[in-house]
Structure formats: structure tokens, C-alpha cells
């Protein structure tokens, strides 16, 4: 990598300079790197895997992978895009493996997904009925997402819950913006069909992202 290329990328995102220090063996720099990106990566893994503990393990693996690959870095765009790409690939591999294990057990691949632990955040609403309703919506969303093919799931999660633009998603996944749009469109069709099957679980709510 040329110094000029590195200079441009580092100017766009100082994270690359931090990663260069990691590559040089500065573990303190690595702690700063993890500290800076841990929240985003943990949340992304949790959205993709649907399990908090599994997401923590996955995020840790992603950071360790970044640590090992730091010396091979080719700075381009934003550092978080590179980290997101590693995280998405890692999580999708975990999901494929999860399905394979169920297939080898001669079980319906979706059986376990249905039984997967629901999100259980602390109750913030005072109204128990509202809390229950919110949990139902979350479970319905989780089910709809879990039934999506891996590529559509990644695009939907990045767009809806990470708030990434089509261009950013294309960068993370290494695909064209057209492919992002196409996957998102198909994902929306499937989600809509799932919501029509269980209309009571997903009440209408106003507001764009």
C-alpha cells in the first residue's frame, strides 16, 4: 500500500492510523480500537444472531480477526465498514452452521429458531400490557428476520436497525447498490407476507426510519 493511499484513507477516518498502530504491535491501540467500535459491533451481531451471549462471542471473534488481519490492511473508506464486513460474514457463517446442525439432526431448520430465546430487555414501560405488546412485536420481527435468506437478512438489518444507506450497505457486503435494493425489496415482500399471516402481532406504526 502506498503512503499516499494510506494518507488519504487516514484523513477520511483516523481509525486506519489506529489500526496501523495495532499492526505494529501496540496492544494499547487495539484496546482503544475495540473500545471505539464495540457498541456498534455488539449491536450488529445481536441483531443478526438474535442472541446476546452468542453476539458477544461473535463480536470478540470479529475483533480478534481484525487484530490478526491488521497487518494486511488496505485502507479504503471507513474502518467501521471493514469491521462490519468481517462481522456480517462471521455472523452469517454462524447462522449457516446453526442451520446445518439442525439439518443433520433431521429437524426442521426453523424449529429451533422458533424456540430461540426471546429478547428480554429490562421493562421500561410502566404499563404491563404495553410491555407485553412490545415483546410480541419484537418476537414477530425476530421470526420474520430469521426466515429470510442470509443475504436478505443482512441487508434488512443493516438498513433498518443500523441505519446504513444503500451505498454503505453495498460497501459492507461488497455488492452493488442495485443488488442491495433488490435484496431489500425481496426482504420487504417476505416480511409483508409474514406480517399478513400474523396481523395481530405487528400493529401499524407511523414514522420513517
Amino acid at each position, binding site marked *: 500500500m502506498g503512503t499516499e493511499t494510506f494518507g488519504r484513507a487516514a484523513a477520511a477516518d483516523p481509525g486506519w492510523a489506529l489500526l496501523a498502530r495495532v499492526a505494529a504491535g501496540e496492544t494499547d491501540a487495539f484496546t482503544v480500537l*475495540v473500545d471505539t467500535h464495540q457498541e456498534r459491533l455488539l449491536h450488529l451481531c*445481536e441483531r443478526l444472531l438474535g442472541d446476546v451471549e452468542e453476539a458477544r462471542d461473535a463480536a470478540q471473534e470479529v475483533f*480478534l480477526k481484525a487484530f490478526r488481519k491488521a497487518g494486511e490492511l488496505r485502507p479504503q473508506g471507513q474502518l467501521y465498514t471493514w469491521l462490519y464486513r468481517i462481522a456480517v460474514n462471521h455472523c452469517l457463517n454462524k447462522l449457516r452452521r446453526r442451520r446445518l446442525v439442525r439439518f*443433520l439432526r433431521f429437524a426442521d431448520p426453523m424449529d429451533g429458531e422458533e424456540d430461540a430465546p426471546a429478547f428480554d430487555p429490562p421493562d421500561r414501560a410502566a404499563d404491563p400490557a404495553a410491555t407485553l405488546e412490545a415483546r410480541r412485536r419484537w418476537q414477530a420481527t425476530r421470526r420474520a428476520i430469521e426466515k429470510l435468506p442470509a443475504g436478505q437478512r*443482512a441487508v434488512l438489518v443493516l438498513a433498518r436497525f443500523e441505519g446504513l444507506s444503500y451505498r454503505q450497505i453495498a460497501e459492507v457486503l461488497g*455488492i452493488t447498490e442495485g443488488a442491495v435494493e433488490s435484496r431489500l425489496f425481496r426482504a420487504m415482500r417476505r416480511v409483508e407476507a409474514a406480517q399478513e399471516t400474523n396481523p395481530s402481532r405487528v400493529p401499524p406504526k407511523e414514522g420513517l426510519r
Partner: protein
Amino acid sequence: MNRVMEMELMRLLHGELPPDQERALRGRLEREPGLAAALARLQKTWSGLELPPAAPVPLGFAQRVAARAREQSATVSWSAAPGWVRAAAAAALAFGILLGAGASRWTGLAEPAPEVQAQAGQVAATTSEPTDALLDDSLAASYWSALDDIDESGEAPSAGETGGDAL
């Protein structure tokens, strides 16, 4: 409603339309109730997707990850080898096992006595999760790990994947 129109509505919903196209489409939405209804449907689907707030970052997470990184950098292990090296080693090991099994069958050396076979059958029957055991085996783990490294190298997918729905 055709797919092109629906995709344009989706771009509007996601704030991805250029300003002039957005103005034009909003003008059409005021004049065409069918189009407005389609947008409302998309909006309902989109906003109906809700998940709870993500769990907080566990205390000391960054420090723990850094400690593991230090451990790894101080240890020379298979995990430090390039993915293709580990994949080749796993494949060679599998080939060796198959070759060994074939040779023992051919020579008849490893044919166990009937009572031993019966005991082995009982052990196998008491194993509750054979597939998990297979997948947790070190050879299989090595294979998966090697594939991970190839897939998660942070590189863009191959050209065939860039334009379609391969993922």
C-alpha cells in the same frame, strides 16, 4: 403496481431518491390514491419491524478482548496459520483417516471381535447428540475455522457475487 414503481416507493421511504425525483414522486402521490396506498403499505411493513434496545456493552469487554489478543500474539498455533494451510492440513488428515480405514478393511487387521463391536454399538446408542459431537470434533472445527478465515478475510466477495443475490 409494478416492481419498478414499488422499488421507487421503497427508495422514497428510505430517503434514497435524488431531490428532483422525490419532488416528482410526491406530486404523483398527491394525485394518485393507489400509489399513496402502496406507499402507506410499505411504510407500515417497515415501521412494523421493531426490535428491543440492544443489550448494553458488558463491563471490561474491550480489556478482555485485548487480553485475548495478547495471548494469541504470544502463542504460535494453528490458528495463526493462513486459512488455506489449515484447510489443506484438515483435508490431509481426513484423507489419512480414510486411507487408514480402507487399508485396515483390506488387510482385515482392524476388524474387532464381535463382543467389542457389540460394546461399541451400545456406546453409540447412548450418545444423545451425535451430530454435535461430529461438528465439535477438532478436525471439523479446524475445517470450519479455516473456512471462516477464508470467508471473513475482509475482502470483497468474488465478482459473481457482486451483482446478484448469492449471499
